[in-house]
């Protein structure tokens, strides 16, 4: 029997369509069909400057918008050959780790909701509201922040942000314990996720999986530790790795432990930012590529001309190309820019982690029961905005 898990489905986390061939309850073949949210972002980026593409990236992985902004900014900075100042790097790390916590909370809430645990959904969204109010304080928007810019931030962080972050970070471990109490040793949870949707390490690497999907299968690969960016080598954190064959329970444990490690990193980042000053420089002083501050624009002629050029045309990067990847909550998110010297990129390619991770679905699910398809999709943590771009 061929069954269509259509684009409108309560558990497919967006508009994913999976065509299943079933024999009773056993899945013989599973074919994911995507493209129902294709937005043409890569084509549109060729008509916009680098800074104008930053709001587009918010809409890609919409659960972790600041991560996407960071990936674009780092890739553009690699192309330009500049590096953001240390205070900016620390703020970026802080906000990206809070984003990771919020994205994993949504994942946990919706995954648990699919499997049947409704309480976890409400608890996780309560935590997420706190992170969203931090976003609101920093840039004005709850979800689609567009706060990072090439060479720095859009504006300095407001007074009181660090206290709010610290309060959140201090109470987060207790909440994580709450989620674990509800789920980790729950017999229903274990029956639904242990041994379900396994993915061996060799399969994961061959299929290109990255992020918690790869780490759940036992491969210890995390870009924050192995190829650090934005000052991550200065932070002290562990990388959780799955231990029992890469099933859904492993991926769950990896992500819950990642929430704990992110809390740890965020605490260290807050100390760093406090040490460098709660208010201070938030942009690189390289006026060829980065906007100068308003005081300088009003006093210095050079800064005025640079400001005008950058706002009217955009900055002119050198002719070349660069690929920079970050460890987004879903996996390796990379931006590949090819520049031809004009303010608009010649090509922007987004290497999105969920697109590649979704390819592992048939391997995980063939030969198993239909109900495991829901668990598998949930444990992969896919976001259709990122897959379809």
């Amino acid at each position, binding site marked *: 029997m061929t069954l269509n898990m259509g684009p409108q489905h309560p558990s497919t986390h967006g508009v994913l369509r999976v065509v299943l061939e079933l024999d009773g309850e056993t899945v013989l073949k599973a074919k994911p069909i995507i493209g129902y949210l294709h937005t043409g972002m890569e084509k549109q980026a060729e008509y916009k400057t680098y800074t104008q593409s930053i709001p587009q990236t918010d809409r890609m992985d919409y659960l972790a918008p600041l991560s996407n902004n960071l990936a674009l900014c780092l890739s553009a900075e690699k192309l330009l050959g500049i590096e953001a100042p240390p205070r900016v790097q620390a703020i970026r790390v802080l906000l990206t780790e809070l984003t990771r916590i919020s994205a994993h909370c949504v994942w946990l809430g919706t995954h648990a909701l699919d499997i049947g645990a409704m309480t976890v959904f409400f608890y996780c969204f309560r935590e997420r509201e706190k992170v969203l109010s931090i976003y609101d304080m920093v840039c004005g928007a709850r979800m689609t922040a567009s706060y990072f810019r090439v060479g720095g931030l859009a504006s300095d962080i407001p007074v009181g942000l660090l206290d709010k972050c610290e309060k959140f970070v201090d109470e987060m471990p207790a909440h994580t314990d709450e989620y674990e109490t509800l789920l980790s040793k729950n017999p229903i949870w274990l029956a639904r996720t242990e041994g379900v949707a396994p993915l061996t390490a060799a399969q994961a690497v061959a299929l290109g999986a990255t992020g918690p999907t790869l780490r759940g299968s036992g491969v210890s690969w995390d870009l924050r530790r192995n*190829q650090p960016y934005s000052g991550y080598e200065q932070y002290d954190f562990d990388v959780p790795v799955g231990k029992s064959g890469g099933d859904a329970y492993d991926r769950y444990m990896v992500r819950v432990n990642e929430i704990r490690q992110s809390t740890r990193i965020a605490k260290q980042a807050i100390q760093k930012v406090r040490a460098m000053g709660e208010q201070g420089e938030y942009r690189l002083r390289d006026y060829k590529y980065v906007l100068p501050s308003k005081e300088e624009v009003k006093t210095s002629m050079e800064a005025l001309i640079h400001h005008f050029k950058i706002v009217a045309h955009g900055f002119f990067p050198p002719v070349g190309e660069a690929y920079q990847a970050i460890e987004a909550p879903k996996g390796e998110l990379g931006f590949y820019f090819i520049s031809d010297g004009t303010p608009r990129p010649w090509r922007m390619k987004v290497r999105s982690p969920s697109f590649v991770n979704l390819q592992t679905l048939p391997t995980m699910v063939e030969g198993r029961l239909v109900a495991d398809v829901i668990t598998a999709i949930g444990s992969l943590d896919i976001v259709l905005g990122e897959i379809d771009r």
Partner: protein
Amino acid sequence: MADPRPQGLSPEVVEQRLRERFPDAEFRRQMGEAVRDHTLYLPADRLVEVCTFLRDDPELAFTMLVSVSGVDYLPRDPRFEVVYHLLSIPKNARFVLKVEVREEDPKVPTVTGVWPTANWLERETYDFYGIAFTGHPDLQRILLPEEWVGWPLRKDSPLGYQEVAFTHNTPDREKPDPDLKKLAPKKVKYRAH
């Protein structure tokens, strides 16, 4: 604090090993002021061999294909390029391979046999540029509807921008009533609660 990263394999060593192993293949290093990753051009017919070697050689071990992207350099001949980004997890190294594709015969052999992840990545490149991958198990459109005609990311395909109707470009629109009393808010009569 000691640097926890394992020491990576340098890309020059990778290029050297490739040249030693395939002395007759025409490799060309991409040079440029801002080419930030070590990139090698190679001919399309040697692609599968080179990739198999890169994956299987124990000192290189490029076991993961990170991304496949197509690029359209329209007025230039060869018009297209396909860019492969590789990652070696055991050796902590990245490498970039490029294949030039001509417009008259846009075909490239598939690397799905080397890395199964190339399945969807090549389908996406086919979908956007029309570059056919010979030997691909399931070459069809992936992101656009199946009945779509055309290759949207080519430089001669339009963006599809639709003119938005503003007041400055719709002179024949219906103008609002100049009587301002009509704008006064009415009391809402129907309340649900």
